[in-house]
Structures are given as C-alpha cells and as structure tokens.
C-alpha cells in the first residue's frame, strides 16, 4: 500500500492510500497541486483508499463510494468526492464561486459559469498560453482579504473538449488508460510546467458562454449585473446571502467585468489575454 498526502482541497484535508504502484504514481502526479506540508491539528484528515485498476474501488474512511467500481468511474469518483468536500468544508469560511480561474502574477481572472459551459476548456487554453492555473471548478475568496484561495485540482476534461485539447490526453501506462475513458484528469503540470498559481486577487471577471455557431465576442458588463451573476454562480451565496452580498460587491469593485461569447477556444483566449495584458500594465 502506498500512502500519499496529505492534500488540501480548500479546507478539506485528506490522504490517499493506493494498493497499486502505477496508480499511486499517477494519482500522486494528479494531486501534486493540492499537496500540503502541514496539517491543522484541530482538523480532521479523511483517508481515501483506492484499489485498481483491475479491481477498482474508492473508499472514504473505509466506506465504499458508490459507482467507483468500474475503471472509467474511479478517478471521477475520487475528484467528485474531493470537490464536494472542498465546497462543503469551506462554505462557512469563504465565498465559493462555481468558476474556473487563472492568474498573471497577482492578477486573477475569474471565469464563472454553470457546469458544462466550457470553464475547464477555457481555463486549460489560457494556461497553455502562459497564464497560471488557479482552478477549473471552485474559486474560494477570503471575505476579509478578498484573496483567492488556490484550489489547483487536476483539470477534468470532458469528451466534448477532447478535440480542442487533444495534446492534453493523459499519457499513462496501458493498464491505466481505462481510468480516463470517460473523462480526462489532467495535472496542471501537464498543461504547462510550473503553471500552478501563487497568491492572487480578482481583477477581471469574465462570464463565458459557449456558442460554437457565433463569432467570439466580448461585451462590457455592469458591476451590478456581475454581482447578480456571481451570486447565481456561487456554491454558498444563498446559504448566507446577507453576509456574502457585501463581499460580492467588494470583489466586483476591484474588477472589470465582461461577458464573453465563446465561438472558438483560440479567439476566446486571445480576448482574455488582451484584457489581462491591459490590466497588468495598468498600475493599481
């Protein structure tokens, strides 16, 4: 048994025990962005146990996760569990947005959007072009400092994006290939070496909307509308709206806000890179 960790997914802390050396090496690479050197002594540390790939199974504190016993569901089950616990364990501490995010130095770009709307694809495209990776799923923002709390999970690439991101297909040994047959799990390091973001603060908010039949188009958005859209793309706003509304207002107050109709990945990335370039060059 190979023991991996500890890891931190926002406030969720866990270790992973793996019974297969090849799988352990692969999971270790995927989770490298979540490695944490310390454990809060007062906090709990879940133990996730993985078997596979011949007899796949994921268990959390010895309780088997339903549906994890087929190869193509093993890694999605792992990262689905980590995502859910990252959100639930943090929801009373941070503003949590359903968003991808990238950064250029201290400047973070938030990409809030519902599921299946191309967050991961756009995030990956931007990281490939030189921006740093914050997350492709959940942005945690500290209500007091407004700093983005990194959540550098592996990028979860659905089949609909495999053509656009073909170079990111996981290069794994033959026995592990079935684990990626329904969704690619891609380490940020595989997208670009050294791409995991350092500390950052939101400076741009871009709401992507994938419309493959339309030309890519960037539209200004009022900050008031951005507050509403951010709330609607939040995991925890409605649990504590009165406290989080001023936080949303403070976030957008320091940001330029846009809608981005995404016709294709390349032009969408160019639009955002141009915004970042402008933003980075303008002194705060």
């Amino acid at each position, binding site marked *: 048994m190979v023991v991996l960790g500890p890891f931190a997914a926002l406030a969720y802390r866990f270790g992973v025990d793996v019974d297969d050396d090849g799988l352990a090496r692969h999971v270790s690479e995927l989770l490298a962005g979540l490695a944490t050197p310390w454990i809060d002594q007062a906090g709990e540390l879940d133990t996730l146990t993985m078997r596979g790939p011949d007899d796949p199974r994921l268990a959390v504190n010895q309780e088997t996760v339903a549906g994890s016993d087929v190869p193509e569901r093993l890694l999605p089950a792992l990262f689905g569990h980590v995502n859910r616990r990252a959100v639930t364990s943090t929801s009373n501490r941070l503003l949590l947005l359903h968003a991808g995010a990238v950064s250029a130095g201290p400047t973070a770009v938030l990409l809030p959007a519902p599921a299946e709307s191309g967050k991961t694809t756009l995030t990956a495209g931007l990281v490939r072009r030189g921006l740093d990776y914050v997350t492709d799923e959940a942005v945690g923002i500290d209500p007091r400092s407004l700093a983005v709390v990194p959540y550098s999970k592996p990028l979860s690439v659905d089949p609909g994006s495999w053509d656009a991101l073909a170079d990111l297909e996981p290069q794994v040994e033959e026995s592990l290939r079935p684990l990626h047959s329904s969704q690619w799990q891609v380490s940020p390091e595989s997208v670009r070496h050294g791409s995991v973001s350092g500390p950052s603060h939101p400076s741009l908010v871009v709401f992507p909307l994938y419309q493959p039949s339309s030309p890519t188009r960037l539209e200004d958005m*009022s*900050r*008031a*509308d951005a*507050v*509403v859209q951010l*709330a*609607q793309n*939040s995991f925890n*706003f*409605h649990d504590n*709206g*009165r406290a989080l*509304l*001023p936080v*949303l*207002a403070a976030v*957008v*107050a320091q940001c330029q806000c846009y809608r981005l109709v995404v016709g294709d990945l390349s032009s969408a990335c160019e639009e955002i890179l141009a915004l970042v370039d402008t933003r980075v060059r303008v002194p705060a």
Partner: protein
Amino acid sequence: MTGSRRRTLRGDDVISAGDGVESVIVDGQAVLYDEAAKVLHVLDPIGTVVWQCLDGSGTLGEIEADLADVYQMPIKQVRTDVRRLIRQLEKLELVDGARGRAHPVASRPVEHVAAEGSPRVLEEPPNP
C-alpha cells in the same frame, strides 16, 4: 410583509426597506437581495436614488419634494415616477410601508445624479 400593498400611496406614508432585504450600491446601482425569496434585483440609477431614501426617516411626500428640489424636476412627475417604483417594490415585497409621520432620525442626503428615464426594476430569477 407590507400591509399597504393594495392601498393607494399617500404623501404621509413612510416606506422602508423590508426586514429581509439586504442591499449594496455598486457603481450607482442598488443590488437588492430578498433573503426569503432568494432572489436578487438590480435597480437602475434613478431607482437606486429612491431606494437610498427609503430609510424610514421621511415620508413619501418629503422624499418626493426633496428629489424634485435636488433634480429640479416638476413635483408631479417625480411623484408619479417614485410611486410607480414603490408599487413595483411593494409587489416584490421588498419594502414595508406604514401610514403616518416618520420618527425624527437623521436622513441621508441624496448624493447621486439620476440618469434619464423612469425608474425600473430588473428582476433576476433565483438560482435553481
């Protein structure tokens, strides 16, 4: 929430934000959060100015007179626009109303310059 929803608005009514309504002003626009309905609303700049006056410190008539004075607009037009907005806010249960003079508390000055056009409320659907 408001007992005055179906009555005619009068100049001595005192209207204030509903108990369960949180608001922030962002770039001159009020964003209102109705905690019970879990719905957000955005007011346009004129609506925002009116909203900021609904702090329970003045009667509707006093607010209308102040706005007419500040913006140099006919009181009749201001009254029509303000009461239209108040009725919309009442319908959305975002304000509470009471009849009679307000208690003497410090009122906030009107600081924003209103844009042209009638007050309007943009309703956003709740997050599913």
